[in-house]
């Protein structure tokens, strides 16, 4: 299916893009309005380059148009709705029709195939609750391939390890954080990685450094494959690594991921200006769905930084390659796969503490396999209170409020104001 000429592929992409725009304009008032605002009709998009004429959309739109505002099909055609905490008061959701699910199954199967998974493999999935949606998609993809699947479940590290060993799992789909934890755990207890039947790790959720990958591969005796996906909408395995990923891991990245550009159209733009960057330079990744029925996305700002890899790949795949970079274009931090908006954190703090501009730093705390959002709040005169109990209560209330808002565990510490 993928062995078509460049011309045919461009034609296919154009056809799919045009029909997506037609459907979006016809069925989704949000998109139709934005087209009108820019005084554009779908028929004005005559080539893939014309995509730049269209406006962007981002996560805030997903929250604002809760619950049905962005659906392009009637509700009765939606067979699944994925939810995520979102960046505002509304959860962010996305919907799928039967056809959409079929397509996603195909794309996940593609990523498995590229990683060398066959029907003889046993796939185990271990993902944090924030990526539970992906858990389901990987399970479906694995089943579509005919492999054995052990879906996501809340087992402890030890029990997970037992299952890995006793059921001879060959493929583990997990986050880099968990993989790291697994590796450290095994070595702390001096367990031999060879007692596991593990052949490969598929890491999802965030970009990984080459060094970490090299470490994992060496110490766990596995092949590591990266997958890129969006946690709220369309799904996992938007891009996957191919067979010709660097064996030596010499380069900082992993030589790039193939993005399924026959179903999702990627662009790289300068996050500040919104204009496309020259081929090969880094910028924010923008995605446009080409075959999504329920939830078309037009120029969605992912907030992930990436760059196209213009050099042709060693494998024969015609899909274009991307390098996923560690930086982010937006003001977000990833905790257990869930994207947390720092702006939202700040504004919630402001409201909770009744302080105009709370001085704080935010970071991710990784401990014992869990990730927490740590906020170091600078104590100043406004906040200071003699009553420790009062302060503690305020802090714990704020923690609870924030946790409910953003969907991740929060830990607030008070720190002294730094005297320069």
């Amino acid at each position, binding site marked *: 299916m993928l062995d078509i000429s460049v011309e045919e592929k461009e034609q296919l992409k154009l*056809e799919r893009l045009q029909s997506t725009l037609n459907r979006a304009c*016809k069925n989704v008032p949000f998109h139709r309005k934005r087209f009108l605002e820019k005084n554009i009709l*779908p028929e004005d998009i005559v080539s893939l380059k014309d995509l730049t004429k269209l406006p962007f959309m981002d996560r805030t739109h997903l929250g604002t148009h809760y619950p049905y505002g962005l659906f392009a099909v009637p509700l*009765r055609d939606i067979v699944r709705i994925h939810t995520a905490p979102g960046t505002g008061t509304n959860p962010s959701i996305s919907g799928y029709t*039967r*056809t959409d699910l*079929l397509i996603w199954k195909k794309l996940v199967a593609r990523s498995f195939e590229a990683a060398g998974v066959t029907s003889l493999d046993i796939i185990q999935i271990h993902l944090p609750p924030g990526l539970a949606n992906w858990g389901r998609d990987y399970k479906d993809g694995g089943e579509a391939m005919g492999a054995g699947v052990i879906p996501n479940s809340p087992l402890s590290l030890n029990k997970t390890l037992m299952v890995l060993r006793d059921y001879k799992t060959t493929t583990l789909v997990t986050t880099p954080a968990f993989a790291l934890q697994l590796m450290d755990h095994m070595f702390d207890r001096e367990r031999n990685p060879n007692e596991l039947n593990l052949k490969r790790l598929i890491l999802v959720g965030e970009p990984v450094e080459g060094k970490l990958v090299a470490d994992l591969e060496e110490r766990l005796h596995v092949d590591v494959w990266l997958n890129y996906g969006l946690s709220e909408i369309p799904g996992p395995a938007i891009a996957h690594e191919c067979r010709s990923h660097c064996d030596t891991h010499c380069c900082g990245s992993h030589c790039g991921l193939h993005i399924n550009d026959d179903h999702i159209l990627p662009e790289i733009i300068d996050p500040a200006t919104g204009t496309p960057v020259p081929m090969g330079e880094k910028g924010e990744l923008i995605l446009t769905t080409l075959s999504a029925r329920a939830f078309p996305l037009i120029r969605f700002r992912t907030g992930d930084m990436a760059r196209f890899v213009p050099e042709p790949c060693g494998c024969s795949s015609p899909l274009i390659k991307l390098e996923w970079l560690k930086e982010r274009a937006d003001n977000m931090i990833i905790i257990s796969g869930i994207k947390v908006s720092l702006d939202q954190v700040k504004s919630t703090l402001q409201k909770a503490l009744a302080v105009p501009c709370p001085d704080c730093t935010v970071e991710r705390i990784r401990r014992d396999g869990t990730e927490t959002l740590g906020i170091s709040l600078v104590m100043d005169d406004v906040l200071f209170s003699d009553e420790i109990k009062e302060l503690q209560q305020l802090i714990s209330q704020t923690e609870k409020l924030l946790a409910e808002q953003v969907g991740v565990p929060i830990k607030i510490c008070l720190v002294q104001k730094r005297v320069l």
Partner: protein
Amino acid sequence: MLRIKNLKCSYGSIVAVHGVSLSVKKGELISIIGANGAGKSTLLLAICGLLKNWEGEIVFQDKDLKGMSPPAIVRSGISMVPEGRQIFSPLSVMDNLKMGAYTMYRKGLKSQVEEDFDMVMEMFPILRERAHQLAGTLSGGEQQMLAIGRALMARPRLLVLDEPSMGLAPKIVEMIFNVITTLQSQGVTILLVEQNARAALKISHRGYVLETGKMVLQGSADELLVDDDVKRAYLGRDYGDFYDGRDA
């Protein structure tokens, strides 16, 4: 084989087709489905050169069809079976078929034409029976067969059919579609425009859905047959659903 980009067709100031792109690969059977007035026939007229007023790009085997006259397009390998059959009533069946081979005579390929007669008669035995009858006296189904036979006489590389099932009884429709499937298996590339979406998609590789002149959906025939929108709008209920109690 056929690649269309951003085709825009107008009748005077009324735009019938708004920026449609589609493609047909060699050996495929592609269906275009849609309601009445969706612009399907207009699209075909533009491909065959019978509609002069179009913008965009139509490329057939790397040749740009813009500005080409209908006879020239026939010579390059596209044959159309028009809507409503449009066989030549005052001419006999044989003469109609001879007309189909009009461009062949020009190239001096008379012997080939004789072969083609036999080929068409074999495919449609009823035409052999009625060879000298006036075409206007044939039944609807026979006329449709004649129209297809006539188009085949030009040995087309791309056969374009405009609503072949229109006005025909279901049994005849089934027969005609069997013929189309046979042709495809013999290597003829076919572009089919149909209102009977179910029958068309069942025999096609891929399909395109046109709505008020805009392309709104495309995909493999299997995908389209299970798609909810398509089912609701175009597939109606299969007679089997009534008997089995299935919900279409």
